[in-house]
């Protein structure tokens, strides 16, 4: 999504006062997930496409650029539009398993 300054009625100060604690919690949850991966009984998913997308998304999070949500959505998305010739499965994985292009 574009930055669209001024579309949120609250000021930056008000947003911080109102939403800081809950977003601090979410950030710590992600940090704990990453630590948990490091403490896993077996390091057997370092090349997993979902983890690769996750780590790419984290780089977008820390970048000082607008439209972070849309950028991360596209990191997780299959960008192709070709129809599958046959149904392979019913459920989605949450990230695209195909060739990955780094989003700047």
């Amino acid at each position: 999504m574009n930055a669209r300054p001024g579309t949120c009625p609250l000021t930056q100060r008000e947003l911080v006062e109102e939403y800081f604690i809950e977003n601090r919690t979410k950030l710590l949850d992600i940090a704990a997930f990453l630590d948990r991966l490091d403490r896993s009984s077996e390091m057997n998913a370092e090349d997993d496409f979902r983890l690769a997308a996750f780590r790419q998304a984290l780089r977008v999070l820390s970048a000082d650029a607008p439209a972070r949500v849309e950028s991360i959505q596209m990191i997780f998305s299959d960008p192709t539009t070709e129809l599958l010739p046959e149904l392979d499965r019913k459920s989605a994985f949450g990230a695209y398993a195909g060739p990955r292009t780094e989003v700047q």
Partner: protein
Amino acid sequence: MDYVEMHAHMASRTTDDYEQMALTGCVALSEPAFWAGYDRLSAAAFAAYFEQLTDFEPKRAAKYGIQHYTWLCLNPKEADDRELAPQVLALIPGYLDRPNVIGIGEIGLNRVTRNELATFVDHVNLAMEHDQLILIHTPHLEDKYRGTKVIVEALGGDARVKPERVMVDHAEEHTMPMILERGYWGGITLYPQTKVSPGRAADMIEVFGSERVCVASACDWGPSIPIAIPQFVMEMRRRRHPERLIRKIVYDNPVQFLGQSPKFRLPRAELAAVAR
């Protein structure tokens, strides 16, 4: 605040959920036909489901003062079965005259296969032949972007389809622009895990505006919250958005979209208020 729930799979919810929805202001809801979590074994199983949607559920809702409307189809999770599809589609015209049936849905794509698209087109043809509104399911997670793109491009190639009579649901930040810019309605579904949080829904309203946009809980048999719309209302109030804007999204917009069906009935004064 009164609200209209655009997307709720009440067949998989308890009567207590109807009560909670009524207590939090739900005055009407629409229930799309969907996947039961397992593949139904025959067209007869769909006939039984359509009976539930057009007879049992409206009675259950009415006990709590909620108007119940429904959409019929073979859902996208089972749409790849091209042997089953024509059998189920053949059943649907027999239900279109029932008083709570307002359209064809939720049709769409799941894994974006050739067969799914063929069944989707069959449903669009059925809707056009019977002058029905259309409710569209877009795929989840990594398949959402490409599935939504294939859907809007397929619809765009059909001159019979009036965009204002189509709701493209489960829209997210990366798909809402392609839906709204083509003139369709965009639906935002509020899910605790796999879809959009009330906070992100409020963000999307702030960025994309409130025209042709609705929010819904899409509550079903999975982790979901039947009173997600009141949670969205709370989030909007937390940001000090005006009551007028909040009401437009949770009441006026659904009434405007659903009101295109002659079967949708709210008090005339309410419809007049929306028209203003």
